[in-house]
């Protein structure tokens, strides 16, 4: 995903674009009838994206269910019932149970805490670091920029899974370490995007105007550059959450991520791998579905944010 163009002032978006559409926008050269705030425009555009709105609710539900597991889950975490053994979905156990008789719905809710927490933490840290370094590189150019570019170039050529797996092996596999390792690689993509954005905004006339009227560098960054860069940052951060969740699950699935007793959705799938082809396959469906729904929801929200910030991007 490339960096998006900065926010343009009010442009009305029309449907049914085909070959001769460019002039449609020319037709609407006259000023808007009433001034609308940026925020209301933004939220209006976001709300138009039905899937994004649905996803917000869905994600909210997931977050509540997982983080409120202590109070909402039907059973205790890790509550074993060896008499039942692994059964498919029943009235008492909506998602079935595993070999130790643990209710899968409960396990998924608790496991979700880890998956979601790691995903959010990684995205947060990566975005923070990436934005900081990217904007410094973009704004000051020359040495900082070259350093950033060469460094990220280096890391982008090596397969991420490999680096992550080796790093986790080296530094340990508790949640905190995993978060730091993933973020340690994740900030680079955002840094590049932010740098690109800063560069393109820096070129715009209003920055020159600010410079000429004597604004300090800090002021220019904060007042002029950042507002235009916020959009792509938010979009990429959101999509980064999804990417982090998937990466953590993949690593856990391969056995390199969280270790028992800590459990995440990826870990649950790793444990359930052997059930393919048996009647216990339900152990695979539900954690995977949880993952799928979460990632889907986050992706839709990211898409909605992208549309809200830049209405000219094509769906």
């Amino acid at each position, binding site marked *: 995903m490339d960096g998006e163009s900065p926010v343009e002032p009010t442009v009305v978006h029309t449907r049914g674009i085909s070959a*001769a559409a460019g002039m449609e926008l*020319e*037709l*609407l050269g006259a000023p808007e009838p009433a001034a609308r705030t940026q925020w209301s425009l933004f939220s209006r555009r976001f709300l138009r994206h039905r899937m994004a709105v649905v996803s917000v609710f869905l994600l909210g539900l997931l977050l509540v269910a997982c983080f409120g597991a202590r109070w909402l889950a039907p059973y205790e975490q890790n509550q074993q019932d060896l008499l039942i053994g692994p059964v498919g979905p029943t009235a008492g156990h909506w998602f079935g149970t595993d070999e130790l008789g643990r209710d899968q719905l409960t396990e998924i809710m608790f496991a979700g805490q880890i998956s979601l927490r790691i995903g959010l933490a990684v995205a947060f840290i990566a975005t923070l670091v990436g934005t900081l370094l990217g904007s410094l590189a973009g704004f000051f150019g020359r040495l900082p920029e070259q350093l950033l570019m060469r460094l990220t170039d280096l890391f982008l050529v090596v397969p991420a899974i490999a680096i992550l797996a080796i790093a986790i092996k080296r530094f340990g596999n508790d949640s905190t370490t995993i978060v730091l390792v993933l973020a340690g690689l994740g900030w680079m993509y955002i840094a590049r995007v932010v740098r690109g954005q800063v560069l393109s905004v820096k070129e715009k006339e209003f920055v020159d105007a600010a410079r000429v009227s004597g604004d300090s560098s800090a002021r220019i960054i904060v007042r002029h550059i950042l507002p235009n860069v916020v959009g792509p940052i938010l979009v990429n951060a959101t999509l980064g959450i999804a990417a982090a969740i998937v990466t953590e699950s993949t690593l856990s699935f391969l056995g390199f991520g969280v270790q028992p007793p800590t459990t995440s959705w990826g870990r649950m799938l790793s444990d359930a791998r052997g059930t393919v082809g048996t009647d216990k396959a339900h152990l695979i469906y539900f954690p995977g579905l949880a993952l799928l729904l979460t990632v889907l929801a986050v992706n839709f929200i990211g898409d909605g944010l992208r549309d809200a910030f830049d209405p000219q991007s094509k769906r």
Partner: protein
Amino acid sequence: MPAEADEPIDLEVLAPGPGPAAAPGFILSVRHLRVTFPTDDGLVRAVDDVSFDVAGNEVLGIVGESGSGKTVTAMALLGLLPKSAEVSGEILLGGQDILGLSEKSLQPLRGRRIAMVFQDALAALNPVHTVGAQIAEAITVHHDLPKDEVRDRVASLLDLVGIPNPRQRAGQYPHEYSGGMRQRAMIAMAIANDPEILIADEPTTALDVTIQAQVLDVLARIQERTASSILLITHDLGVVAGMADRVMVMYAGRQAEVGTVDDIFYGARHPYTLGLLASLARIDQGSKAERLYRIDGQPPSLIRVPDGCAFHPRCFRAVRPDPCATDRPDLVGAGADPAHLSACHFADELADVTAEQLREAMPR
């Protein structure tokens, strides 16, 4: 795909003298053309009841600001409007109504009987094909000719529009041409099949003034030589003055005034036209203290066109509310020539008003 492979083809690139379509009457007749676009903010009335004729061997200039509807009109003629556009009225090309024809039916006409030159030649030419290939395509989609004949024809066309080393240039890509050359190449492409009418949409707007002259010169020469008609769309009155036989002034999607170039420039009968003429900066007039004339206000949003006459909010002659704010003026005869039409309730009175007077009246 060639339309009719056995149609006689004029191998002499462009024969001098009276050329195509010697049909009596008008080459193009537009009747009550209306184009609207639905948008999130409302219905855009881009073209609102426009009617005009273009005779053979004449240059009709369509003048107006951005948003006046002139480009949309041109697009409507070729059927190039987006699917969301609603178009009504009649567009008669040689007597046949081509409005609403399907893509398939329009293809044989486009580029052959009616052709178009676009504004931004760099964007309008495909960057990954050579200029020669693109001109050749214009020919081969309508005629089935052997390759070397097409090549010859391409070279002669490029030569005709004044491009040096045409054979060599034909193998180059658009980005290797200069701006003026690109525009001339587009003209060459448009006239490749000797169209009856050529629509030039702001052909010189993107160019330097000196290059503008070259391109207009090429257009003029071609028009003389082939006796085809040209629909010249521009916002530049100077361009129109030099090239057009007749002029149509558009405002807010409607016609303000239509007439011969002399009638419009020396005998304008519409406040908008007068305003345009007055705002032309002139080197030969005015003391240092004289201000430039400008028409008050802004062109209206095409979603909320004012009631009555679209121009009335900015008009120096308007009488509000009645009739200017309530009755939309019809385009009727004004002045001596019956073909001189104006859409103004007070067109007759404007006979004595000149652009100079408007300028003088500006406060210093």
